[in-house]
């Protein structure tokens, strides 16, 4: 493998890994935010029912 091969291998792995992590984070965040919104909504409606 030539010199540039190693360079691209390193850069490739690094930026792919960071990209994947960022996408995973986005997905986890989206799921969590949906769950939180649902919880908030259901607890708000419960409060309204009680009052």
């Amino acid at each position: 493998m030539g010199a540039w091969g190693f360079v691209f291998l390193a850069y490739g792995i690094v930026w792919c890994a960071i990209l994947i992590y960022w996408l995973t984070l986005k997905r986890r965040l989206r799921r969590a935010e949906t769950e939180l919104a649902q919880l908030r909504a259901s607890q708000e409606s419960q409060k309204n029912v009680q009052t």
Partner: protein
Amino acid sequence: MAEISKTSVKSKGYLGALALIGVLLGLYWGLLHAPPDAYQGEVQRIMYLHIPSILTAYLSFFLVFVGSCLYLWKREKRDDILAYSAAEIGVLFTALTIIEGSIWGKPTWGVWWTWDARLTLTAILLLIFAGYLMLRSLTEDENRAASAAAVLGIIGFLDIPLIHMSVYWWRTLHQPPSILRPDKAPWDNVHPAMLTALAINFVAFVLLYFYLLSRRFRLGEISEEIKARLLNRDH
């Protein structure tokens, strides 16, 4: 609460955009603009990744330490979230540092791995981070997990200089840092374009790190609120 999350989302957007610009600039400077090294050739360009990576890894551990100390002192959940987030991202950057170092090592030294000081130390750092994360996931009670991990974070951070010393005394085959030489000024050693490339990539990595940290932190906050609401609901 809704207003706070809106402004923080906006500022995170700016941070993300800045990080992206920094990364792209860094890529251009590192891969195209800076000249190849006189001795190492093109392979030296990996250093524009490797040096910022290891520095962000250590920054991460420092934040784990700060978060751990603050949490044990004040018992505020956000400090614990900071420590946990910094540990998670720290593992990522430490692992990447090792991979970059290994790939750089193959054409330079002929082997994918040697037990020289810096690679060994980075591997140890990875093990300590991993231990921290394992301790958290294996401890069942949330609060105990947070305290236990905080203590481990503090002990780990205090141990690192000792580990550093012992490994360095034992092994000195890794090249001395070519920038930080006490007898010469930093710019004597290195072509200015290379220094600029390194600086830009360093800033880019730090921005990227804090962007990812802020997102992971937000995830932690939301998880906390979910847990709190579930707890309230069941009681």
